[in-house]
């Protein structure tokens, strides 16, 4: 039924070809996925991610809250890093429908990715290392390569 090929734990992409099992296109700048807290808890559990936001219990997925993965490129070395954070309005921001701006933002927690993050303030994780971690924790039997 699905054009299913075997999971490649190296996540290699042949030159000039679209990455199998990826979302969007190579020129997509924002991939927005909306689901439920069960999905967020599950993904965080797979990568052993923890967070804590003011007013919430640890690892809580507030309504509207999001796990954010930024792909960033160093302008000096060209290296790609992944910067993870968890962002959610506080309970009172939700209750009061508080306008959000860069100066009055929602609560935000930088997230350390075990086995990958470095010890800077944003816990940046080199992309190559994240791929290695991912290939260890992802079960190839539970994954397809549909785009």
């Amino acid at each position, binding site marked *: 039924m699905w054009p299913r090929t075997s999971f490649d734990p190296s996540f290699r992409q042949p030159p000039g070809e679209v990455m199998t099992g990826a979302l969007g296109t190579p020129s997509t700048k924002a991939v927005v996925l909306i689901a439920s807290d069960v999905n967020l808890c599950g993904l965080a559990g797979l990568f052993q991610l923890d967070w804590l936001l003011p007013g919430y219990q640890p690892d809580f997925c507030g309504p509207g809250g999001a796990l954010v993965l930024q792909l960033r490129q160093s302008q000096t070395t060209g290296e790609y890093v992944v910067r993870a954070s968890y962002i959610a309005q506080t309970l009172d921001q939700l209750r009061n429908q508080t306008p959000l701006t860069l100066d009055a933002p929602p609560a935000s*927690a930088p997230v350390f990715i075990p086995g990958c*993050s470095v010890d800077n303030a944003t816990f940046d994780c080199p992309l190559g290392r994240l791929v290695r971690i991912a290939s260890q924790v992802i079960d190839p039997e539970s994954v397809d390569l549909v785009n």
Partner: protein
Amino acid sequence: MTNHFFRFAALALACGPFLAAQPSDDTLLKQVIIFGRHAVRTPASTNAALFNFSVQQFPNFLDASGVPITGTSVITPNGATDETLLGGYFRLWLTQEGILTGNDTADANFVYLRADDLPLITDTAQAFAVGLLPAATVTLNAYTPPANDPLFVPVAAGVALLDYDMAVAAVNGRLGGNPQSLTSAYAAELALTRSVLFSYSAGQTPPPTPSGKVDVTAVPITIAAGNNTLPVSLGGLADVAEAIDPFVMEYTDGLPLAEVGWGQLTAGSIGQIFRLYDLLLNLEYRTTYLARVQSSNLASHIVRSLVQGAIGNPMPGALATPSTKVIALIAANTNIVGLAGLFHLDWLMPSYQPDVAAPSGALVFELRQSQSTGEYIVRTSYVAQTMDQLRNQTALTLDQPPAIAPVFIPGCSGANATFDCPLGKFVGVASQLIDPHSADLVN
């Protein structure tokens, strides 16, 4: 509703044949590793130091003659009795399993006892041995201070290298870089702690901090580099842990209830307060980076000892010898929490919070062999006396055992009732989790 009922009924019918088809246990116990925490002890701080945090004097723990024990972190007579009771339970179980024979002197040759080198812990190991093999003298393997045992304090022993900046980042990155947010997440536990220490009803408006006292619940929770036994300094959270540390010991040692949290605490509310202490241990020892650095050497020795027991030949980095049947390792809750963190093990026991390493309690790894296929499996459980069994020094038998939780090993355990984990698969999981730079091959 009806639809759900039929779904449930269909599920039950589908499971019926499966449950009936579960094979009976044809495995034989070949070797057991009992990795336990020290027994009930006196508080880690002096009563004089603790009195800075409370309006009432902390109670005394008594020696066998009824005289107050002045030493900190020393085993109490009741703690030693509890430990011997637990050793006695393992004697009964291992005799039933055919590992012990009743000839203690002969059996002692197949028992390896290793303890971290603090007097509390070596005394615990000796009390355990008295229960396990009462008619024999079991050799105790322990380093002599100031040498550090690389199994239990690998960083101080120089076997594992701890990057303190990475330790701070790994903990900070679990807390959104804002550890002070823990005070709202744990507001109820902190409020209860304050009410006990300052002797007021938990329901009333909190009074101001009494003059001359430190309110540990108001000390900011911060994160900074720690030292080679407490890798991250957590500010107020460490102060809270120091102040509440005596409560579980007061209860389990059997002090009069009027002296347990000055009459304000029960087993249940001690558990609630101890969520703060458990949090400290979780951050210091279960954080992935810290578990890898601090527990890899112990994990490596445990796995290698199990392999040695299965192949029957000496193995580098294993403990004891291939013919050893019982390996008893005694250390601290920090070690048990760390090892559990490395392997992502969880358990839940009556009267305790999740994943608590109780006084005397032990993580137990059984090396078993199938009598039909020859396959070796590892069966893991967590065994500990309940808080009331400790408090009442309850005699333990096979019919009246301590609390026992079978433990699932992620990535390895099968779906049977005891979560058996094939030895080869366990080695595979361990080799992914253990940091080779934090382990040695010393036997």
